[in-house]
């Protein structure tokens, strides 16, 4: 294949697992504004769990201190207890026995009188410190677990809530696999960051600062020497991290390309077979796979080398301090003592350790930053704006005056009205919901520079049926997307019962519109819940009635669990026709005054098609209907047929009128007749 493959974008499918994801965000070795993202992340994590964090901080300090006591104990054990014990027994004239260990075996009988009480007390003390250390460490881990899992849950919920508010455009312009991996892969990168990197960093800072102070007190020159070595460690780590990072980016890119190729070829595997393209594919794949290997090898190599280099630089630092310190101490300069040197060397070890640990956390921090950036990008997406203030309310209609009078009521009367609170004077008027839709000179484009609909004018009286015909891409579906305001128009006006749709609250507007799309989306839930999606509080009887109206009742009853059968994978266990019937039932139960129907495509066989058609016909009765027509029967009895071409309505009228006009409609109609 001569063409250089692109950075892949995944359109379909579920990107589960880190492998199946194209590289996103990691454009350079550094993520822009990583400082800002880091602060935001800290703020986010801290906001809801500040109290938890305080306890974690106390626990960290506590366990650092307890560990310190433990370390001190081991150092003093020999000097303060064992040596004196040894001397006391060996200098005394040997008689008397020790207690305690005689039971184990009789080896100690010749030992001198030894007083172990001092040691015992010291051990009891240190045992308490140890116990405290364990308690602190466990409490810390336990609380961090709540913070980590809790933050992840909160973040996911917040993302989802926000996502639900985003305009359709967001879903149009983002690959679905990418959106999905935000919830799994990207949120998961934060786990390591919160549960390990953050406390580790805090721990390291405390250790480094306290050790540093102690070192300065002991010896300034040696401290400078140690710091110089740390500088060297950081420098080399940075260099290696840079090399590793560069290759890491390359690896992610190549991984994305290979995964993209795999995705494409696996979904096209049957075509590959039919065209005997196997060997050619293998060649292409090998090439891409080798490139991936090269970059993955390099990235991992540098990452692996980092740890030994830092560890051994630590050793070098130790040796240097020992030699220089030895000269200083033995020369008696600067008032530096042998004891001081021993302590300093211990501190030197303790100083290098946390720096090593932090550098090991760098990788997970970088990954978490990349993940956090993508998550925040989603949260920063502008939600769908809704400046509408006209609401839909249930009313009682009183006909006792010349003008009908509407009284707002909480109960469901079956009569609905638009409650229009006028902004100028605050007065309220009610307009009965009838389903009159008017388009007046509407222009629309998905982007401002390319209009797809031009000067659309149409007028639908309540109960009328309007059909759209025309070729794919003529703009039929787009028009219906404007009525329920999935998109906003650039010019012109759309009125619903005389009210500009921009003034109507989106939720109320959409509630009054039923929609059956060509591609049916069902949810993982029981059949009954899927139908109830149209009306959440529908009773069982209502659901069955809706199913009967949609001709779905018969097949539902044949399912293993009838209405309680659980549908999975977008109703994968149903045929396309059956899914369509469920979608019709779903619309029927919502009982909207206005319907938007996109008729089914060709892949349904004729008999099922008849049943679906019949269900749709019943649903349309008495409602204003916009139908994107695929069948003559739908079109013929429409009140008005709109023939669309390239975003314009080129002809309009009833079936008979249009046939007489002998225009495009006539052509389509007769062309079809001729070949049929």
């Amino acid at each position, binding site marked *: 294949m001569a063409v250089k493959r692109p950075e892949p974008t995944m359109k379909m499918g579920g990107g589960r697992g880190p492998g199946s994801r194209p590289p996103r965000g990691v454009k350079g070795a550094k993520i822009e504004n990583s400082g800002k993202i880091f602060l935001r992340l800290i703020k986010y994590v801290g906001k809801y769990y500040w109290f938890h964090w305080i306890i974690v901080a106390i626990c960290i300090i506590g366990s650092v201190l307890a560990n310190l006591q433990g370390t001190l104990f081991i150092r003093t054990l020999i000097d303060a207890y064992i040596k004196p014990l040894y001397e006391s027994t060996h200098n005394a004239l040997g008689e008397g026995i020790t207690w305690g260990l005689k039971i184990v075996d009789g080896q100690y009988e010749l030992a001198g009188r030894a007083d172990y009480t001092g040691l015992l007390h010291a051990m009891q003390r240190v045992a308490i410190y140890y116990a405290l250390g364990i308690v602190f460490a466990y409490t810390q881990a336990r609380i961090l677990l709540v913070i980590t899992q809790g933050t992840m849950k909160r973040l996911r919920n917040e993302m989802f809530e926000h996502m639900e508010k985003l305009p359709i455009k967001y879903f149009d312009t983002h690959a679905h696999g990418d959106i999905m991996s935000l919830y799994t892969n990207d949120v998961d990168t934060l786990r390591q960051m919160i549960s390990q990197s953050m406390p580790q960093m805090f721990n390291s800072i405390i250790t480094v600062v306290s050790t540093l102070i102690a070192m300065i007190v002991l010896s300034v020159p040696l401290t400078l020497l140690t710091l110089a070595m740390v500088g060297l460690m950081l420098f080399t780590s940075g260099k290696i991290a840079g090399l590793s990072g560069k290759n890491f980016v390359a690896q992610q890119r190549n991984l994305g390309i290979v995964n993209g190729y795999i995705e494409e070829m696996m979904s096209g595997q049957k075509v590959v077979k039919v065209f005997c393209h196997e060997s050619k594919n293998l060649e292409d794949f090998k090439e891409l796979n080798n490139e991936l290997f090269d970059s993955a090898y390099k990235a991992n190599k540098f990452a692996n080398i980092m740890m030994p280099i830092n560890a051994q630089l630590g050793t070098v630092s130790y040796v240097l301090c020992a030699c220089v310190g*030895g000269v200083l101490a033995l020369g008696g300069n600067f008032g530096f003592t042998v004891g001081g040197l021993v302590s300093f060397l211990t501190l030197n070890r303790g100083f290098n350790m946390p720096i090593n640990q932090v550098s090991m956390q760098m990788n997970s921090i970088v990954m978490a930053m990349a993940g956090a950036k993508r998550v925040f990008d989603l949260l920063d997406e502008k939600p769908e704006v809704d400046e509408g203030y006209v609401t839909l309310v249930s009313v009682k209609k009183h006909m006792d005056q010349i003008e009908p009078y509407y009284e707002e009521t909480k109960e469901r009367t079956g009569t609905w009205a638009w409650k229009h609170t006028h902004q100028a004077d605050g007065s309220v008027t009610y307009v009965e919901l009838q389903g009159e839709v008017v388009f007046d000179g509407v222009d629309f484009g998905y982007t401002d520079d390319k209009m797809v609909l031009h000067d659309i004018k149409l007028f639908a009286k309540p109960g009328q049926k309007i059909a759209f015909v025309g070729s794919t891409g003529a703009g039929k579906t787009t028009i219906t997307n404007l009525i329920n305001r999935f998109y906003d128009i650039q010019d012109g006006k759309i009125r619903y019962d005389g009210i500009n749709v921009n003034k109507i609250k989106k939720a109320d507007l959409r509630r009054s519109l039923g929609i059956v799309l060509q591609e049916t989306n069902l949810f993982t839930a029981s059949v009954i819940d899927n139908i109830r999606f149209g009306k959440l509080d529908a009773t069982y009887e209502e659901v069955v009635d809706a199913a009967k109206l949609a001709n779905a009742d018969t097949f539902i009853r044949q399912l293993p669990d009838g209405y309680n059968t659980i549908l999975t994978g977008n109703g994968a266990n149903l045929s396309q026709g059956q899914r369509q019937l469920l979608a019709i039932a779903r619309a029927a139960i919502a009982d909207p005054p206005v319907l938007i129907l996109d008729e089914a495509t060709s892949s349904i066989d004729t008999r099922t098609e008849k049943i679906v058609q019949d269900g749709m016909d019943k649903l349309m009765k008495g409602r204003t209907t916009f139908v994107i027509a695929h069948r003559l029967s739908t079109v013929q009895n429409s009140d008005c047929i709109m023939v669309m071409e390239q975003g314009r309505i080129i002809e309009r009228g009833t079936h008979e009128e249009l046939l007489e006009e002998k225009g495009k409609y006539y052509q389509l109609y007769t062309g079809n007749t001729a070949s049929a």
Partner: protein
Amino acid sequence: MVKTLLKQVKEFKRDSLLTPCFMILEVLMEVLIPLLMGSIINDGIEKGNIQHIYLMGAAMLVAAVIGLFAGAMGGKYGARAATGFAKNLREAMFTKIQTFSFANIDKFSTAGLVTRLTTDVSNLQNAYQMILRMCIRAPFSLVIAMVASYFVSPRIARIYLTAVFLLGAVLVTIMKFAMKYFSQLFEKYDALNESTQENVTASRVVKAYVREDYEIKKFQKASGDVYDLGVRAEKMIILNSPFMQATVYTCILLISWIGAHMIVSDELLVGDLSTLLAYCMNILMNLMMLSMVFVMITMSMASAKRVAEVLNEESTIKNPKDPVMNVGDGSIEFRDVTFRYDEHSETPVLDHVNLKIASGETIGIIGGTGSSKTSLVNLISRLYDASSGKVMVGGWDVREYDLEALRNQVSMVLQKNELFYGTILDNLRWGDETASEEECRRACRMACADEFIEKMPQGYETIIEQGGSNVSGGQKQRLCIARALLKKPKILILDDSTSAVDTATDAKIRKALAEELPEMTKLIIAQRISSVQHADRIIVMNDGKVDGVGTHEELLANNVIYREVYEAQTGGNRDFDENGGEN
């Protein structure tokens, strides 16, 4: 399973062997350096021996350099071995999949194969590197420390041994429980994914019914479940560390106590005690490391199993030993063919089908969904093998042909077709790699694809996006037909390949095929009567059986199903011309 996978190490055997060697060298240095450090303090500083400090310092530097070298080499070879192993696994699977029959692919599903090639391989790569670097290192280091402490004091070594076993048992128990919760957690993750996916794909439905809040509640339940199980699983994991610490601390206290007594009774030297305490830390750290490796291996076992499944799968369709390389003509015969996708299913997909099609005939196939039209034609190019009976092409059983030779002569346009990333010409040349641009244009003219291609800004050089997302359904179908024509096959099968093309264009394509390629046998599966009614003969399929064969007029006269479909399509329910009249 492990053997299957290890076979794929291949040229990276050397790296795989060198890695643990270097890791062992690094461990030796790691043991040596603390000894030297102790010597600097005990024999150098405390005794005021500056020469000794220099000497030991120099020795430490040498050890550090060796340790650095060993660590770096271990890192390097480990990286090479692991990434190389991953590379070989991917390649081996991809190669294997190329030999798969349709039945094999159906078994694994496309999504399943993708996960195996991507996520599972990544998991195995990480696990392999971990095993090479840690699995040898940790036990080795553990053993060294144990042996060393045994030499210092067998009594104390016994304490370690007991501690190691006790702790090991505790850790294994914890892991077992944790794994149980983890596998439950993965299920909940699936539910979460499902909820997200549905809302991403069905965003229009959710918005149209104003069900955002309802869906949010549903999602919150799913994410709440993930939270609950996540906490429960990790609660087990974090138990590791207090047990670890408790064991280490108990050991330290015990050793101090017993050690003190032993020193007093001259059984132990003072210096030895500090060495023993240092080993204590070492032993238990390594144990912790091992438990981490253990978790990782357990978690990657699932991946290993899935990858091995692909590698061990045998293609259900294989080339015969002495294959027939030439397809004589385009005649097709079904001799009492019965076919099941699953051998154990009771009702066959095709039930005793007998058919004879002469070379050059145009055959229409019609029937409801599920009437096995596609299954019927799939047998002709041996995408599946018949369960019983014989499918013959050009007078030979299809099972005797070389697969490639057969499939090159039987060109199929699948119902669910795919275009691939690349220019239009690249895609067309799947049919014939050596086709000239003129030949490609000719094929496109026949498939009525030339007009829209020429309208595109880059014409035949226009890049088709992955999955063909930048062409419409009708355009895609016509490109696929053109691609199939470029094979210049003896038999062309169109499986509902013009469903998104308007009827007028559909007719034009059929006319072009009939006039320009009269000698080619054509099988046309369609939903529309208009697509098949001019065929020489039409086969009506019903429930896996041939319900009738004949011309349009014959079938109208004496086939009930055919008449019913015809009436449905010409009456009120006639197909209105809309679906992609891009012309």
